[in-house]
């Protein structure tokens, strides 16, 4: 018989847990070893002594303090798992609106910046007119032989418009007070204005 099986049989006998089959097996063992029964009886007596002499329950010293100390630890554990909720300020309740307001502010600042960076008409004229410290006419009026040619390059995605026959108007002319007698006016402008006031 295997050693483990024998040990199991012996322990079950001590604990009175043998089945009828196992009892038969153990009886055979006892016949072979005459000292076995005495050994088992001594073991059984010892087990009973341990059972009676070693208490299953012993109150810990200062048992009330044991509970209070433990419950304090439990409370700390609970607090560490559920930290106290922060007091919510009124503006925190509008958290949902932060994103659209932010987007709106971004759009407004874009347009404001765009407008600031766009110079007024006069400034544009002045700025574009000053190239290489020379004053260039930037306002034109249609001349007598006005021609326009469009050169388009579909592959390159480029179009060039060539306009011929434009008469330059000096940018120091104030059109608010201009009359047909104003000097340096293109002739075509003068005649068209004359037609308008006829």
């Amino acid at each position: 018989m295997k050693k483990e099986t024998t040990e199991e049989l012996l322990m079950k006998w001590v604990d009175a847990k043998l089945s009828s089959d196992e009892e038969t097996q153990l009886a055979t063992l006892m016949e072979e070893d005459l000292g076995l029964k005495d050994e088992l009886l001594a073991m059984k007596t010892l087990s009973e002594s341990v059972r009676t002499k070693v208490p299953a329950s012993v109150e810990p010293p200062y048992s009330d303090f044991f509970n209070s100390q433990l419950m304090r630890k439990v409370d700390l554990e609970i607090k560490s798992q559920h930290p106290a909720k922060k007091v919510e300020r009124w503006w925190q309740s509008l958290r949902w609106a932060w994103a659209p307001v932010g987007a709106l502010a971004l759009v407004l600042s874009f347009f404001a910046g765009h407008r600031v960076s766009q110079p007024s008409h006069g400034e544009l004229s002045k700025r574009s007119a000053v190239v290489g410290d020379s004053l260039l006419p930037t306002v034109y009026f249609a001349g007598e032989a006005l021609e326009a040619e469009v050169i388009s390059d579909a592959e390159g995605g480029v179009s060039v418009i060539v306009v011929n026959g434009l008469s330059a108007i000096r940018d120091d002319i104030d059109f608010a007070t201009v009359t047909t007698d104003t000097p340096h006016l293109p002739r075509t402008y003068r005649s068209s204005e004359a037609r308008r006031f006829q």
Partner: protein
Amino acid sequence: MAPAGVSPEAGANEQEVPDHELIKACQKGDTRAFESLVTRHRGKVYAMVQNMIKNEADAWDLSQEVFLKVWKALPKFEARAKFSTWLYRITHNVVYDWLRKRKIDSAGELDDGVLNQSDIAAGSRTSPSVSARPDQALANSELGERIHSALATLNAEHRETILLREVQGFDYKEIAKVMNCSLGTVMSRLYYARKKLQSLLSDEKRND
């Protein structure tokens, strides 16, 4: 809904509330129910730990640790398992962690080295306790103290097996669950623990 209002000092009424109801209440966060559960089981846990490590102060601290772990693990506890088996499994883990730590600290042996009487006196007391009357003490001291001394000499596994079987009355399967080992290992440990205990006590008797 009895567990919710259970007072740990409720005495007889508290005993009527079964463990599983207290456990359900604990799982809902009822700390009063947990305290009742602690009051009910602290003696057994403390006795087990004290018998395992033979030091009252450490046994007190480790028992606290056991119950704190129980509180943390209770939400995961399933009613299919027996609460006492589960409780002793946690106790087992806490005690063995302590033994391992002690082994590392002292660079000693885990088994007989850490737990034998030369290292820890079986009757060592680190907190005050009530003494028995002299006549009772005399009657109890002989066999009782010899058994305690002999138990202290066993290694941790053998001692735990004996305590779970003889003192706490666990069956073999429960012991296997608590100690996380096979049934065969339990039978073998029980056999050798009983044999060694018997041998120690007969040696002592012979010496007397």
